[in-house]
C-alpha cells in the first residue's frame, strides 16, 4: 500500500523542484549585502580571520597601515587604510551573505523543531506488546533518549527521528520536504522511518527514537545549511595550501624589495609596500573561497538534497560510474501499453475496441495506459457510456491471471498468454498458432505481452496481443549522452532477466546493466568498479541497500527510505527522486569549477597590478620604468590607491558569481578547460587593466592624491 503512495509522490517531487528553485535559489540582491553587514563586521575578529591565511595577511596589513595613518595622517594613508579594511570587510561580507541564505532556510526548518512533548513508553521487560502499555509519561521532546518508545496519534507531531515499531499511519512531511501530499509510514519494511517535526495525520504509531536530541535529522540539516558544522573539504584544504604558498612568495617578494629599493636609493613607504602586497596575494579567491563552498551546499539544499558533508559534494564531481535503478529512474515506474498487434482476420480497431472495453473498469496503471493508447491512436471515447457503465467488471486475480468485463453474454478478457489461451479453448475457440510467435517476440524485446480475447455471440476467439513496455523516460538518452561526454559511465540496475534488461538498456542508452540484481551483486559491482579506480555513485532506499550505499563513494538515500539506508548513504534526497543524482554530480562539478576559475582569475589579475604599482614606486629613481605605466595613471598615489580599490571592489563584484557558481554545461574536459581559461584566465588579465584605469579617472580627482 505504501508503495502506491510513494509512486505518485515521486514525480510531484521532481516537478516541485523546478517550480520551487526559482524562489528558493533567489537571485542575489544588493539588499542581502546590507543585511549581512553586521555579521561581516563581527567577522573582523582576528580569531575568525586566522582561519584564512590570505585574508589574515590583509588583516595584519590593515592594522599596520591604520597605525601608520594615525601616526602620520595624510589623505593617501587614510584612504589606503580605509580600503584595506574594506577588502577584509568585503571578504567577510561574501561569507556572511552565503551563510545568510542558508540561515533563512534554517529558520524555516527551526520552526518545525518547536518544542514538542512526547508520550513516552518505558519498555517493560518481557512484554513485547507495546499497545498494552496504557500508561505513557508525557515528557518534553528534548529529554528523549535513543531507544525510547513514544506513541504518536493523529494530529500530533512526531517528537524525534525514529523507526515505527508498531502501526501504520499517514504522515505529513511537508515541513521537511515542502511536499504537501501525505506519505504512508508503517512498521517493518522499507518505509518505517519517520522524521521529527513531521505530523501524523491518521492512525496511531509507536516509534522507537533513534537519534539524540540536538542530533536529529532536522538538527543536522540546520547545522549544514547554516554552515555551522562546515569543515573544509579535502580539495578546499589543498587549494588553501596553494594559496598560502602564493601568499608566502609574495610576502617574500615584497620583503626583499625594500632592501633592493634602499640599495637603489629609494626606500619605500611601508604603506606602499603593504598596498603592493595586498594587491598581489590572491585576495579574490581567498575572500570568496568559503562562500563558494557554502553556496555549493546551499544549491544542493535548494534541490532538496542534504549532504552529510561537503566532502560528499566534492566526491560527486569526481564520480565516474553512476549506478541507477531502472524502475522510477530510467523508466516510468509502470509498464505502459505501446502497441496493439491483431491476429489474422481481426482489424486493429476491433482489437483496440476490445482492449479498451476490458480495461474500462481496470484502475491499474497498465489498464489506464491501454485506454490512453486506444484513445490516442484509435479515437475511441475515453469515458464509458451508459451501457458500458452497467457492465460487470471481472477483476484480476492471481488464480485467473486475467481481468476483463462482461456485457450481457459477451465477455472480453485480457491477461497472460497461457491463461487467456486456456480460457478461449474452454469456451470452444481455438488459438491461432501465430499468437505464440508474437508473444515470444514481445518478450524478447523486454516488453510484456497481454493477450486479448473475447466471447461474442457464443464464439470464442483470440483478437490479438497488447504490448506492455517499460517506457524509458523522455530525455534519458540525451542525459546519458551528456554524462558520457563528461566521462561518466552509467550502469542500470534491475531485477529483470538479462534479456529484458538488455533491451531496456539499449533503449535508454546506458553503458552497461546489471540484471537480476541482488544486494550482494550491487556491492560486488561497486567493489569491482572501485578496484579499477572508479568513483561510484548510487541511489537506494531499502535497508538491503545500506551496505551498497555505504560502499559507494556517493550514496544518495531517498527520504522515503529506511533509517539504516539514510545512515549508510552520505546524501538524502527529500523528494525521493533518484534522477536527481545526476543534478548532484553537476553541482559537485560546478563547485570545483568555480573554485578553479576564481583562483585563475585572481592570479591573472596580478599582471595589471604590477603595471600599475611598479612604475608608481620606482619611476622616481628609474624614470625609464615610467614606460610600464601603460594605463597612464595620473600620479603614483592615484595608481596605488586605484589598484587597492579595484582589488577590494572585485570581491564584491564576484560575490554573485561565487554564490551562483560558474555556469556548467556538460561537455568534454578539453572544451570546458578552453572555455574557462579564456573567460577567467584571459579575462583575468584584461579586466584589471580596464578597472584600474576607470577607477583612476575618479581617484585622481581627490585632492591630495
Amino acid at each position, binding site marked *: 500500500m505504501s508503495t502506491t503512495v510513494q509512486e505518485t509522490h515521486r514525480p510531484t517531487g521532481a516537478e516541485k523542484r523546478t517550480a520551487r528553485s526559482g524562489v528558493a535559489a533567489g537571485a542575489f540582491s544588493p539588499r542581502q549585502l546590507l543585511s549581512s553587514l553586521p555579521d561581516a563586521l563581527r567577522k573582523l575578529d582576528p580569531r575568525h580571520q586566522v582561519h584564512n591565511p590570505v585574508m589574515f595577511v590583509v588583516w595584519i596589513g590593515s592594522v599596520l597601515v591604520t597605525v601608520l595613518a594615525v601616526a602620520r595622517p595624510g589623505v593617501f594613508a587614510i584612504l589606503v587604510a580605509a580600503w584595506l579594511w574594506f577588502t577584509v570587510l568585503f571578504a567577510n561580507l561574501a561569507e556572511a551573505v552565503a551563510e545568510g541564505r542558508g540561515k533563512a532556510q534554517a529558520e524555516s526548518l527551526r520552526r518545525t523543531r518547536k518544542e514538542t512533548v512526547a508520550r513516552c513508553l518505558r519498555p517493560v521487560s518481557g512484554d513485547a506488546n507495546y499497545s498494552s502499555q496504557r500508561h505513557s509519561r508525557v515528557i518534553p521532546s528534548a529529554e528523549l533518549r535513543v531507544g525510547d518508545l513514544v506513541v504518536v496519534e493523529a494530529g500530533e507531531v512526531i517528537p524525534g527521528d525514529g523507526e515505527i515499531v508498531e502501526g501504520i499511519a499517514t504522515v505529513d512531511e511537508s515541513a521537511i520536504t515542502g511536499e504537501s501530499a501525505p506519505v504512508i509510514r508503517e512498521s517493518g519494511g522499507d518505509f518505517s522511518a519517520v522524521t521529527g517535526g513531521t505530523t501524523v495525520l491518521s492512525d496511531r504509531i509507536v516509534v522507537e527514537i533513534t537519534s539524540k536530541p540536538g542530533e536529529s535529522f532536522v538538527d543536522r540539516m540546520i547545522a549544514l545549511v547554516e554552515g555551522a558544522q562546515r569543515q573544509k573539504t579535502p580539495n578546499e584544504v589543498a587549494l588553501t595550501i596553494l594559496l598560502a604558498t602564493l601568499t608566502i612568495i609574495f610576502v617574500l617578494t615584497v620583503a626583499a624589495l625594500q632592501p633592493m629599493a634602499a*640599495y637603489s636609493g629609494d626606500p619605500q613607504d611601508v604603506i606602499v609596500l603593504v598596498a603592493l602586497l595586498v594587491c598581489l596575494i590572491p585576495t579574490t579567491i581567498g575572500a570568496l573561497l568559503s562562500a563558494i563552498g557554502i553556496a555549493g551546499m546551499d544549491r544542493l539544499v535548494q534541490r532538496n538534497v542534504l549532504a552529510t558533508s561537503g566532502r560528499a559534494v566534492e566526491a560527486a564531481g569526481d564520480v*565516474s560510474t553512476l549506478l541507477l535503478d531502472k524502475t522510477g529512474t530510467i523508466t516510468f515506474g509502470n509498464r505502459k501499453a505501446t502497441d496493439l498487434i491483431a491476429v489474422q482476420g481481426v482489424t486493429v480497431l476491433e482489437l483496440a475496441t476490445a482492449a479498451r472495453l476490458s480495461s474500462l473498469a481496470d484502475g491499474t496503471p497498465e489498464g489506464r495506459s491501454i485506454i490512453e493508447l486506444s484513445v490516442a491512436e484509435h479515437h475511441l471515447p475515453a469515458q464509458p457510456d451508459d451501457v458500458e457503465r452497467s457492465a460487470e467488471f471481472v477483476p484480476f486475480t492471481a488464480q485467473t491471471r486475467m481481468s476483463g468485463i462482461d456485457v450481457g453474454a459477451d465477455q472480453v478478457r485480457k491477461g497472460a498468454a497461457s491463461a487467456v489461451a486456456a480460457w478461449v479453448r474452454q469456451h470452444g475457440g481455438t488459438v491461432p498458432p501465430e499468437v505464440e510467435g508474437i508473444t515470444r517476440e514481445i518478450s524478447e524485446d523486454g516488453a510484456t505481452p497481454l493477450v486479448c480475447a473475447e466471447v461474442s455471440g457464443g464464439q470464442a476467439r483470440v483478437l490479438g496481443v497488447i504490448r506492455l513496455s517499460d517506457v524509458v523516460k523522455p530525455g534519458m538518452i540525451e542525459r546519458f549522452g551528456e554524462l558520457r561526454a563528461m566521462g*561518466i559511465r552509467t550502469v542500470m540496475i534491475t531485477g529483470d532477466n538479462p534479456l529484458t534488461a538488455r533491451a531496456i538498456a539499449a533503449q535508454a542508452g546506458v553503458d552497461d546493466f546489471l540484471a537480476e540484481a541482488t544486494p550482494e551483486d550491487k556491492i560486488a559491482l561497486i567493489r569491482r568498479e572501485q578496484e579499477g579506480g572508479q568513483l561510484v555513485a548510487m541511489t537506494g532506499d531499502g535497508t538491503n541497500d545500506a551496505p551498497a550505499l555505504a560502499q559507494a563513494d556517493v550514496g544518495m538515500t531517498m527520504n522515503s527510505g529506511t533509517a539504516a539506508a539514510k545512515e549508510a548513504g552520505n546524501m538524502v534526497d527529500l523528494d525521493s527522486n533518484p534522477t536527481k543524482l545526476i543534478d548532484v554530480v553537476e553541482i559537485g*562539478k560546478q563547485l570545483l569549477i568555480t573554485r578553479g576559475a576564481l583562483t585563475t582569475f585572481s592570479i591573472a589579475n596580478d599582471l595589471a597590478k604590477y603595471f600599475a604599482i611598479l612604475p608608481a614606486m620606482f619611476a622616481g629613481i*628609474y624614470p625609464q620604468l615610467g614606460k610600464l605605466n601603460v594605463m597612464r595613471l595620473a600620479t603614483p598615489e592615484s595608481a596605488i590607491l586605484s589598484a587597492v580599490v579595484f582589488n577590494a571592489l572585485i570581491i564584491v563584484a564576484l560575490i554573485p558569481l561565487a554564490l551562483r557558481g560558474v555556469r556548467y554545461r556538460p561537455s568534454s574536459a578539453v572544451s570546458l578547460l578552453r572555455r574557462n581559461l579564456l573567460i577567467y584566465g584571459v579575462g583575468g588579465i584584461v579586466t584589471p587593466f580596464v578597472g584600474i584605469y576607470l577607477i583612476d579617472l575618479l581617484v585622481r580627482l581627490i585632492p591630495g592624491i
Partner: protein
Amino acid sequence: MSDTAAGLLQVGLLLALLAVVYVQFGDYMFRVYTDKRHLRAEQVIYRLVRVDPDADQRWTTYAAGVLGLSAVSIVLLYLLQRLQSLLPLSLGRGNVEPGIAFNTAVSFVTNTNWQSYVPETVMGHFVQMAGLTVQNFLSAAVGMAVAVALIRGFVRSRTDRLGNFWVDLTRGVVRILLPISVLGAIVLITGGVAMSLRAGVAVTGLDGNSSTVALAPAASQEVIKELGTNGGGIFNANSAHPFENPASWTNLLEIFLLLVIPVSLTRTFGRMVGNVKQGYALVTVMGLLWAVMLSTAWWAETHPNGPVTLTAGAALEGKEGRFGIPASTLFAISTTGTSTGAVNSMHDSFTGLGGGIAMLHILLGEVSPGGTGTGLYSLLVFAVIAVFLAGLMVGRTPEYLGKKLGRREVTAASISILTMPTLVLLGAGAALVPPSTMNALNNSGAHGLSEVLYAYASTSNNNGSAFSGITVTNGWFQSTLGIAMALGRFVPILAVLCLAGSLARQKTVPVTAGTLPTTGGLFVAMVAGTVLLVAALTFVPAMALGPFAEALV
C-alpha cells in the same frame, strides 16, 4: 655567410642532432632504469658498498640514501681540498682555504658548480680528478635517480616502494654517464681540447715576456661537465677557454651534450608511464620556453642600447670572437636553462635585456630543459600545480597521470616550488644590507643589483654560472651562497621524493572523457604559462630594479 644565417644553421643542427638521438637514447635510458638484471661491474660495486640491489625502498629510505651520499660527499670533498698539500699531483698548490673549500664542496655535490676560486691557481689535478670530477658524475646521477623515483610514483600504485636509490645511482653512472663521457672525451681531444697532467707550458709572448699557460686534464672533465649539467670549468674562463672549447663544432657539441639527457629523459618518462605523448608534451614545454628565451636574448644582443655597443653594432665585449653573438647566446641560454653554469661568454657583459633574460631563464626554476633529472622532476612539479588549477576548471578534483592531487601532493609540490624564490629573494635582499657588499660589487646602480640577484639565482637553482662583476670570496657570500646551494638542492629533492611516495600509495584512476588530458597544446600552454607566471610574479619587482631598469633606458 652572415652571422645570423650561421647562427640559425647552428640552432637547426643542434635541434636535428637532439631529434635524432631523442627516441633511441630516451628508450635506452628507459631500459637502464627498468632493467631487472645487474651488470657484473655493478654487482661488484653493490658488494663493495654492501647494498642489496634488489631491495625496494620507501621514499624515506630513498631520500636517506640521497642525503647520506651527499653528506659524505661534501665532507670528503672538503677534506680533499683542505689536505691538498699532502696529495699527489697537487702541482705545489697549497691547502684550499676553509671558505672556498666549504663553498666548493657544497657546490659540486649539489650539481651547482659555482666556482668562487680560480682553478688554475687553487685546485691541483688530484682534487680535480678524484674530487670534483667524481662529484660531477655522482651529482648528475643523483638528479636522474630522483627523477626516476618520481616517475615510479606516478606509475606504481598502492605501494610505498619507489625502487632502489643505489641501483639507480650506479646505473646512471655506469650505463649512461661513463660511456658517453669516455667517447665524448676522445672526440673532443681530436678537436684540440687539452688533456694533460702537466701544470702548464711556458711561452714567450710577442712582447718578449714569458708566462705560463696552464694545462689540465680538460677533455675528460669537459664532457661530464656538460653531460651532467655541472658546469664547473677546469679553467677559470670555462668554455670560453680555447683548451676547453677550441672551435665552433666543439662548441656545438658541448651545447648538445648539456641538452641531451634532460631532453631525452622526457622520452624515458613517456615510456615509463606508458604513453610517449606525455613525454612529448613535456619536451614541448621545455623547447617552447627555451626558444622564447633564446630569441629574446638573441634579439637583445644584436640590438644593444648602450652608446658604446651601439657603435660596435652588437654587444661583443665579453664574447669570444670565434663564437660570435649567435653561438654565445645559444650557449648562454642553453647553460642557464639546464642548470649547467658552464659559460662560453661573460653574462655580465650581455646587454641589460640579454643578461636579464639569462637570469630570468635561471629563475624559471631550471626546467627548460633543466638539469639532468632535476629538469624533469622540477617540470613535473610545475605540471602538478598547473594540473591542480586547470583540473578544478574541468569540474573534477585534479588528477595527473591517474593520480589524484590532494593535500599531500599539493603541499609537497608547493614546498618544492617555494624553496627557490625564498632563497633567492631572502639571499639577495639580505646581501644588499651589509656595507661589505658595496665593496664586493664592481658596478653600482641597477647593474650592481643584477650581479647580486644573479649570484643568488644561480646558486639557489644549482646553476653555477656567474654574472661575475662581483667578488664572492668574503665570508658572507661564501656561506650564504653555500647554504643557498644546499637548500636549493635538497629541500626540493625531499619534497619531490615525498610527492613520489604519496603518489605511489594511491591507486590509479582510469582516464575518462572527463579527465583533463595532459597531452596536446592546451596542456603545454598551461604548464609553460604556469612556469612563466610563477617566475614573473615572483621576480618582476626585483628585476625591475636590475635588468629591466637597464634594458628600458
